Protein backbone atom coordinates (compact mmCIF):
# COMPACT_ATOMS: atom_id res chain seq x y z
CA UNK A 1 0.00 0.00 0.00
CA UNK A 2 2.62 2.63 0.88
CA UNK A 3 4.27 1.85 -2.47
CA UNK A 4 1.03 2.64 -4.20
CA UNK A 5 0.92 6.04 -2.53
CA UNK A 6 4.50 6.67 -3.64
CA UNK A 7 3.64 5.79 -7.20
CA UNK A 8 0.56 7.97 -7.32
CA UNK A 9 2.53 10.94 -6.07
CA UNK A 10 5.56 10.43 -8.30
CA UNK A 11 3.48 9.72 -11.41
CA UNK A 12 1.48 12.86 -10.91
CA UNK A 13 4.28 15.11 -9.85
CA UNK A 14 3.35 17.66 -12.52
CA UNK A 15 -0.12 18.25 -11.09
CA UNK A 16 1.13 18.39 -7.52
CA UNK A 17 3.89 20.82 -8.45
CA UNK A 18 1.37 23.01 -10.24
CA UNK A 19 -0.98 23.07 -7.26
CA UNK A 20 1.87 23.71 -4.86
CA UNK A 21 3.26 26.61 -6.88
CA UNK A 22 -0.19 28.14 -7.07
CA UNK A 23 -0.77 28.03 -3.33
CA UNK A 24 2.70 29.21 -2.42
CA UNK A 25 2.40 32.16 -4.80
CA UNK A 26 -1.00 33.03 -3.37
CA UNK A 27 0.29 32.88 0.19
CA UNK A 28 3.05 35.23 -0.72
CA UNK A 29 0.82 38.32 -0.58
CA UNK A 30 0.89 38.74 3.15
CA UNK A 31 4.26 37.51 4.15
CA UNK A 32 7.93 37.88 4.66
CA UNK A 33 9.40 37.59 1.18
CA UNK A 34 8.14 40.93 -0.07
CA UNK A 35 11.67 42.23 -0.48
CA UNK A 36 12.56 39.41 -2.87
CA UNK A 37 11.99 39.91 -6.59
CA UNK A 38 9.21 37.92 -8.31
CA UNK A 39 11.61 36.21 -10.65
CA UNK A 40 13.88 34.99 -7.91
CA UNK A 41 10.90 33.89 -5.86
CA UNK A 42 9.45 31.84 -8.75
CA UNK A 43 12.75 30.22 -9.67
CA UNK A 44 13.47 29.39 -6.04
CA UNK A 45 10.00 27.87 -5.74
CA UNK A 46 10.60 25.67 -8.76
CA UNK A 47 13.98 24.60 -7.47
CA UNK A 48 12.52 23.93 -4.03
CA UNK A 49 9.77 21.67 -5.32
CA UNK A 50 12.19 19.82 -7.61
CA UNK A 51 14.50 19.25 -4.69
CA UNK A 52 11.59 17.85 -2.68
CA UNK A 53 10.68 15.46 -5.47
CA UNK A 54 14.29 14.38 -5.93
CA UNK A 55 14.32 13.51 -2.29
CA UNK A 56 11.06 11.54 -2.64
CA UNK A 57 12.25 9.69 -5.73
CA UNK A 58 15.36 8.56 -3.91
CA UNK A 59 13.20 7.06 -1.19
CA UNK A 60 12.72 10.05 1.08
CA UNK A 61 15.05 11.72 3.47
CA UNK A 62 18.05 13.82 2.67
CA UNK A 63 19.81 14.27 -0.61
CA UNK A 64 22.89 16.26 -1.59
CA UNK A 65 20.70 18.66 -3.56
CA UNK A 66 18.50 19.34 -0.57
CA UNK A 67 21.48 20.04 1.63
CA UNK A 68 23.09 22.44 -0.80
CA UNK A 69 19.73 24.11 -1.42
CA UNK A 70 19.10 24.73 2.27
CA UNK A 71 22.68 25.85 2.78
CA UNK A 72 22.28 28.40 0.00
CA UNK A 73 19.03 29.77 1.44
CA UNK A 74 20.63 30.09 4.88
CA UNK A 75 23.48 32.06 3.37
CA UNK A 76 21.11 34.28 1.40
CA UNK A 77 19.19 34.95 4.60
CA UNK A 78 15.81 33.62 3.44
CA UNK A 79 13.41 33.26 6.33
CA UNK A 80 13.05 29.79 7.78
CA UNK A 81 9.28 30.19 7.60
CA UNK A 82 9.51 30.11 3.79
CA UNK A 83 10.85 26.56 3.92
CA UNK A 84 8.59 25.29 6.69
CA UNK A 85 5.48 26.87 5.14
CA UNK A 86 6.49 25.46 1.77
CA UNK A 87 6.81 21.96 3.16
CA UNK A 88 3.55 22.17 5.11
CA UNK A 89 1.82 23.29 1.93
CA UNK A 90 3.44 20.39 0.12
CA UNK A 91 2.11 17.98 2.72
CA UNK A 92 -1.41 19.36 2.35
CA UNK A 93 -1.37 19.43 -1.43
CA UNK A 94 -0.03 15.89 -1.69
CA UNK A 95 -2.56 14.44 0.73
CA UNK A 96 -5.40 16.27 -1.00
CA UNK A 97 -4.26 14.96 -4.35
CA UNK A 98 -3.89 11.35 -3.28
CA UNK A 99 -7.32 11.46 -1.65
CA UNK A 100 -8.88 12.93 -4.74
CA UNK A 101 -7.60 9.95 -6.74
CA UNK A 102 -9.78 7.56 -4.81
CA UNK A 103 -13.54 7.41 -4.69
CA UNK A 104 -13.78 5.38 -1.56
CA UNK A 105 -11.36 5.72 1.27
CA UNK A 106 -11.38 3.71 4.44
CA UNK A 107 -9.66 4.91 7.58
CA UNK A 108 -6.81 2.41 7.23
CA UNK A 109 -5.86 3.70 3.83
CA UNK A 110 -6.19 7.26 5.03
CA UNK A 111 -3.74 6.68 7.85
CA UNK A 112 -1.37 4.95 5.42
CA UNK A 113 -1.39 8.05 3.26
CA UNK A 114 -0.80 10.37 6.21
CA UNK A 115 1.96 8.16 7.52
CA UNK A 116 3.68 7.91 4.16
CA UNK A 117 3.60 11.63 3.44
CA UNK A 118 4.85 12.36 6.96
CA UNK A 119 7.85 10.10 6.52
CA UNK A 120 8.80 12.14 3.44
CA UNK A 121 8.22 15.59 4.76
CA UNK A 122 9.23 15.39 8.42
CA UNK A 123 12.92 14.50 7.98
CA UNK A 124 13.26 17.32 5.47
CA UNK A 125 11.70 19.84 7.88
CA UNK A 126 13.88 18.62 10.74
CA UNK A 127 17.01 18.88 8.66
CA UNK A 128 16.19 22.40 7.50
CA UNK A 129 15.37 23.62 11.00
CA UNK A 130 18.61 22.10 12.27
CA UNK A 131 20.56 23.71 9.48
CA UNK A 132 19.07 27.13 10.26
CA UNK A 133 19.38 26.99 14.03
CA UNK A 134 22.89 25.61 13.64
CA UNK A 135 23.89 28.63 11.60
CA UNK A 136 22.29 30.98 14.14
CA UNK A 137 24.01 29.30 17.04
CA UNK A 138 27.27 29.54 15.17
CA UNK A 139 26.80 33.27 14.62
CA UNK A 140 25.86 33.86 18.24
CA UNK A 141 28.84 31.92 19.56
CA UNK A 142 31.18 33.83 17.23
CA UNK A 143 29.79 37.10 18.50
CA UNK A 144 30.14 35.99 22.08
CA UNK A 145 33.82 35.18 21.49
CA UNK A 146 34.31 38.52 19.75
CA UNK A 147 32.67 40.33 22.66
CA UNK A 148 34.77 38.50 25.19
CA UNK A 149 37.92 39.51 23.38
CA UNK A 150 37.18 43.19 23.77
CA UNK A 151 35.74 42.70 27.19
CA UNK A 152 38.33 44.06 29.61
CA UNK A 153 41.69 44.95 28.08
CA UNK A 154 44.47 46.34 30.22
CA UNK A 155 46.98 48.64 28.56
CA UNK A 156 50.30 49.46 30.19
CA UNK A 157 50.92 53.01 28.92
CA UNK A 158 53.93 53.91 30.99
CA UNK A 159 56.04 52.35 33.69
CA UNK A 160 53.78 51.85 36.73
CA UNK A 161 50.69 53.24 35.00
CA UNK A 162 48.07 51.10 33.26
CA UNK A 163 44.71 51.94 31.74
CA UNK A 164 41.58 49.82 31.43
CA UNK A 165 39.16 51.33 28.93
CA UNK A 166 35.64 49.93 29.29
CA UNK A 167 33.18 50.15 26.42
CA UNK A 168 29.61 48.91 26.40
CA UNK A 169 27.37 47.20 28.90
CA UNK A 170 28.87 45.57 31.96
CA UNK A 171 27.14 42.37 33.00
CA UNK A 172 28.05 39.96 35.77
CA UNK A 173 30.29 37.88 33.51
CA UNK A 174 32.20 40.92 32.35
CA UNK A 175 32.47 42.37 35.83
CA UNK A 176 34.26 39.18 36.88
CA UNK A 177 36.68 39.49 33.99
CA UNK A 178 37.35 43.14 34.78
CA UNK A 179 38.29 42.21 38.32
CA UNK A 180 40.53 39.33 37.22
CA UNK A 181 42.27 41.26 34.46
CA UNK A 182 42.82 44.24 36.75
CA UNK A 183 44.44 42.21 39.48
CA UNK A 184 46.62 40.00 37.28
CA UNK A 185 47.54 43.05 35.18
CA UNK A 186 48.57 45.13 38.18
CA UNK A 187 50.91 42.35 39.34
CA UNK A 188 52.23 41.60 35.85
CA UNK A 189 52.98 45.19 34.84
CA UNK A 190 53.99 46.15 38.34
CA UNK A 191 51.52 49.01 38.22
CA UNK A 192 51.21 51.63 40.92
CA UNK A 193 48.22 53.40 39.39
CA UNK A 194 45.37 51.94 37.35
CA UNK A 195 42.99 54.17 35.42
CA UNK A 196 39.53 52.72 34.77
CA UNK A 197 37.93 54.62 31.92
CA UNK A 198 34.12 54.39 31.77
CA UNK A 199 33.59 56.91 28.94
CA UNK A 200 32.06 54.15 26.82
CA UNK A 201 29.78 52.66 29.46
CA UNK A 202 26.23 53.75 28.63
CA UNK A 203 24.61 53.29 32.03
CA UNK A 204 26.13 53.17 35.50
CA UNK A 205 23.58 51.61 37.79
CA UNK A 206 24.08 50.25 41.30
CA UNK A 207 25.35 46.91 40.00
CA UNK A 208 28.01 48.46 37.77
CA UNK A 209 29.01 50.89 40.53
CA UNK A 210 29.18 48.06 43.02
CA UNK A 211 31.52 46.08 40.79
CA UNK A 212 33.74 49.10 40.18
CA UNK A 213 33.94 49.82 43.92
CA UNK A 214 34.84 46.19 44.61
CA UNK A 215 37.49 46.17 41.87
CA UNK A 216 39.01 49.40 43.19
CA UNK A 217 39.04 47.99 46.71
CA UNK A 218 40.75 44.80 45.53
CA UNK A 219 43.35 46.85 43.64
CA UNK A 220 43.98 48.85 46.80
CA UNK A 221 44.54 45.63 48.73
CA UNK A 222 47.37 44.58 46.45
CA UNK A 223 49.05 47.92 46.90
CA UNK A 224 48.05 49.93 43.83
CA UNK A 225 45.78 52.91 43.38
CA UNK A 226 42.67 53.11 41.25
CA UNK A 227 41.43 56.25 39.50
CA UNK A 228 37.99 56.23 37.90
CA UNK A 229 37.93 58.43 34.80
CA UNK A 230 35.51 59.30 32.02
CA UNK A 231 32.55 60.21 34.21
CA UNK A 232 30.19 62.17 31.98
CA UNK A 233 28.00 64.88 33.55
CA UNK A 234 24.79 62.88 33.17
CA UNK A 235 26.43 59.81 34.71
CA UNK A 236 27.66 61.97 37.62
CA UNK A 237 24.06 63.11 38.20
CA UNK A 238 22.60 59.63 38.15
CA UNK A 239 25.29 58.40 40.53
CA UNK A 240 24.39 61.20 42.95
CA UNK A 241 20.66 60.44 42.56
CA UNK A 242 21.25 56.80 43.27
CA UNK A 243 23.16 57.80 46.37
CA UNK A 244 26.27 55.81 45.50
CA UNK A 245 29.40 56.71 47.43
CA UNK A 246 32.44 56.74 45.16
CA UNK A 247 34.46 58.73 47.66
CA UNK A 248 36.94 55.97 48.45
CA UNK A 249 39.04 56.59 45.37
CA UNK A 250 39.78 59.60 43.13
CA UNK A 251 37.50 60.21 40.15
CA UNK A 252 38.07 62.47 37.13
CA UNK A 253 35.97 63.64 34.23
CA UNK A 254 38.45 62.77 31.51
CA UNK A 255 41.24 60.34 30.85
CA UNK A 256 43.66 63.25 30.41
CA UNK A 257 43.01 64.64 33.88
CA UNK A 258 43.23 61.18 35.34
CA UNK A 259 46.53 60.59 33.61
CA UNK A 260 47.95 63.84 34.98
CA UNK A 261 46.94 62.74 38.48
CA UNK A 262 48.53 59.35 37.85
CA UNK A 263 51.79 61.04 36.86
CA UNK A 264 51.68 63.15 39.99
CA UNK A 265 51.09 60.06 42.13
CA UNK A 266 54.11 58.36 40.59
CA UNK A 267 56.23 61.48 41.03
CA UNK A 268 56.37 62.70 37.46
CA UNK A 269 55.22 65.75 35.50
CA UNK A 270 54.81 66.62 31.86
CA UNK A 271 57.30 69.22 30.63
CA UNK A 272 57.68 70.77 27.25
CA UNK A 273 61.23 70.57 25.97
CA UNK A 274 62.71 73.98 25.36
CA UNK A 275 63.74 74.60 21.81
CA UNK A 276 67.24 75.83 20.96
CA UNK A 277 65.99 79.23 19.69
CA UNK A 278 64.08 80.07 22.84
CA UNK A 279 67.11 79.27 24.92
CA UNK A 280 69.19 81.70 22.82
CA UNK A 281 66.43 84.30 23.21
CA UNK A 282 66.42 83.82 26.96
CA UNK A 283 70.16 84.41 27.09
CA UNK A 284 69.81 87.54 24.92
CA UNK A 285 67.07 88.86 27.17
CA UNK A 286 69.15 88.26 30.26
CA UNK A 287 72.10 90.03 28.64
CA UNK A 288 70.08 93.11 27.67
CA UNK A 289 68.47 93.27 31.09
CA UNK A 290 71.86 92.98 32.77
Amino acid at each position, binding site marked *: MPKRVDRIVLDNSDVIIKNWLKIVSENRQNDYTSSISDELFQSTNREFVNVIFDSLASGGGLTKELESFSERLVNLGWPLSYLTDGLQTFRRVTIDFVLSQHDQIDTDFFSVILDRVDTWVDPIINKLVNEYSGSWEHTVSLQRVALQELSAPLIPVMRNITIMPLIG*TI*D*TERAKQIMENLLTGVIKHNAEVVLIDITGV*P*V*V*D*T*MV*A*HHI*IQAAEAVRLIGAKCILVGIR*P*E*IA*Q*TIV*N*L*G*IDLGKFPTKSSLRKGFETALELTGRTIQREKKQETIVEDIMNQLTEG
Partner: protein
Amino acid sequence: MELKPCVNIRQEWDIVGARQLGREKAKELGFGTVDQARIATAISELARNIYLYAGIGKVYFEMVDHLGKKGLKIVAVDEGPGIRDLSQVMQDGYSTSGGLGAGLPGVKRLMDTFEINSEWGEGTEISAVKWVR
Protein backbone atom coordinates in the same frame (compact mmCIF):
# COMPACT_ATOMS: atom_id res chain seq x y z
CA MET B 1 -6.64 49.43 24.46
CA GLU B 2 -3.45 50.73 23.00
CA LEU B 3 -0.61 48.25 22.79
CA LYS B 4 2.24 49.08 25.08
CA PRO B 5 5.88 48.48 24.24
CA CYS B 6 7.03 45.71 26.52
CA VAL B 7 10.20 43.76 27.23
CA ASN B 8 10.20 40.34 28.86
CA ILE B 9 12.96 39.88 31.40
CA ARG B 10 14.25 36.32 31.43
CA GLN B 11 18.02 36.65 31.32
CA GLU B 12 20.62 39.25 32.12
CA TRP B 13 20.87 40.60 28.60
CA ASP B 14 17.15 41.40 28.54
CA ILE B 15 18.00 44.21 30.96
CA VAL B 16 19.97 45.83 28.15
CA GLY B 17 17.04 45.36 25.79
CA ALA B 18 14.64 47.04 28.22
CA ARG B 19 17.05 49.89 28.79
CA GLN B 20 17.51 50.51 25.09
CA LEU B 21 13.78 50.49 24.36
CA GLY B 22 13.18 52.87 27.28
CA ARG B 23 15.91 55.22 26.13
CA GLU B 24 14.43 55.23 22.64
CA LYS B 25 10.98 56.12 23.99
CA ALA B 26 12.50 58.83 26.19
CA LYS B 27 14.28 60.30 23.19
CA GLU B 28 11.02 60.28 21.19
CA LEU B 29 9.27 62.20 23.98
CA GLY B 30 11.98 64.84 23.95
CA PHE B 31 13.82 64.17 27.21
CA GLY B 32 17.28 65.72 27.56
CA THR B 33 20.41 63.60 27.83
CA VAL B 34 20.54 63.81 31.62
CA ASP B 35 16.93 62.67 31.99
CA GLN B 36 17.52 59.96 29.39
CA ALA B 37 20.39 58.68 31.51
CA ARG B 38 18.18 58.85 34.62
CA ILE B 39 15.41 56.91 32.93
CA ALA B 40 17.82 54.32 31.51
CA THR B 41 19.38 53.85 34.94
CA ALA B 42 15.99 53.51 36.63
CA ILE B 43 14.92 50.88 34.06
CA SER B 44 18.20 49.11 34.61
CA GLU B 45 17.60 48.94 38.37
CA LEU B 46 14.01 47.74 38.04
CA ALA B 47 14.83 45.16 35.38
CA ARG B 48 17.78 43.90 37.38
CA ASN B 49 15.60 43.49 40.45
CA ILE B 50 13.26 41.33 38.39
CA TYR B 51 16.19 39.29 37.07
CA LEU B 52 17.80 38.89 40.50
CA TYR B 53 14.80 38.29 42.74
CA ALA B 54 11.89 37.11 40.62
CA GLY B 55 13.68 35.48 37.69
CA ILE B 56 10.98 36.29 35.19
CA GLY B 57 8.95 39.43 34.66
CA LYS B 58 8.09 42.28 32.38
CA VAL B 59 8.96 45.91 31.95
CA TYR B 60 6.60 48.01 29.91
CA PHE B 61 6.42 51.63 28.92
CA GLU B 62 3.55 54.03 28.62
CA MET B 63 3.37 57.57 27.34
CA VAL B 64 1.31 59.51 29.86
CA ASP B 65 -0.32 62.88 29.57
CA HIS B 66 -1.42 64.94 32.57
CA LEU B 67 -2.81 68.45 32.08
CA GLY B 68 -0.77 68.88 28.94
CA LYS B 69 2.35 67.60 30.63
CA LYS B 70 3.93 64.67 28.89
CA GLY B 71 5.76 61.90 30.63
CA LEU B 72 7.10 58.39 30.41
CA LYS B 73 5.77 55.75 32.74
CA ILE B 74 7.81 52.66 33.46
CA VAL B 75 6.02 49.66 34.90
CA ALA B 76 7.91 46.64 36.15
CA VAL B 77 5.81 43.58 36.95
CA ASP B 78 6.79 40.18 38.23
CA GLU B 79 5.24 37.24 39.95
CA GLY B 80 8.22 36.54 42.14
CA PRO B 81 8.46 36.13 45.89
CA GLY B 82 7.33 39.69 46.60
CA ILE B 83 8.70 42.03 49.21
CA ARG B 84 8.14 41.30 52.89
CA ASP B 85 8.82 44.74 54.30
CA LEU B 86 8.33 47.66 51.93
CA SER B 87 9.70 50.32 54.27
CA GLN B 88 12.88 48.32 54.69
CA VAL B 89 13.66 48.04 50.97
CA MET B 90 13.12 51.76 50.56
CA GLN B 91 15.97 52.44 52.99
CA ASP B 92 19.37 53.24 51.54
CA GLY B 93 21.88 50.49 52.08
CA TYR B 94 19.45 47.64 52.63
CA SER B 95 20.17 44.66 50.39
CA THR B 96 19.53 40.94 50.62
CA SER B 97 21.91 40.08 47.78
CA GLY B 98 25.09 41.77 48.93
CA GLY B 99 24.60 44.73 46.60
CA LEU B 100 24.80 48.41 47.43
CA GLY B 101 21.16 48.56 48.44
CA ALA B 102 20.64 51.77 46.55
CA GLY B 103 18.40 50.38 43.81
CA LEU B 104 14.81 51.13 44.81
CA PRO B 105 15.41 54.31 46.83
CA GLY B 106 17.65 55.36 43.94
CA VAL B 107 14.88 54.82 41.40
CA LYS B 108 12.56 56.89 43.57
CA ARG B 109 15.04 59.77 43.44
CA LEU B 110 15.74 59.35 39.72
CA MET B 111 12.05 59.51 38.76
CA ASP B 112 9.30 62.01 39.59
CA THR B 113 6.66 59.65 40.90
CA PHE B 114 7.14 56.22 42.38
CA GLU B 115 4.62 53.60 43.37
CA ILE B 116 5.23 50.13 44.67
CA ASN B 117 2.76 47.35 45.29
CA SER B 118 3.90 44.05 46.62
CA GLU B 119 2.23 41.13 48.23
CA TRP B 120 4.45 38.60 50.03
CA GLY B 121 4.39 35.49 47.86
CA GLU B 122 2.37 37.12 45.09
CA GLY B 123 4.75 39.31 43.19
CA THR B 124 5.63 42.94 42.81
CA GLU B 125 4.49 45.80 40.64
CA ILE B 126 6.43 49.02 40.51
CA SER B 127 5.47 52.01 38.41
CA ALA B 128 7.38 55.25 38.08
CA VAL B 129 6.86 58.34 35.95
CA LYS B 130 9.28 60.93 34.69
CA TRP B 131 7.80 64.17 33.34
CA VAL B 132 9.29 66.05 30.41
CA ARG B 133 10.51 69.40 31.62
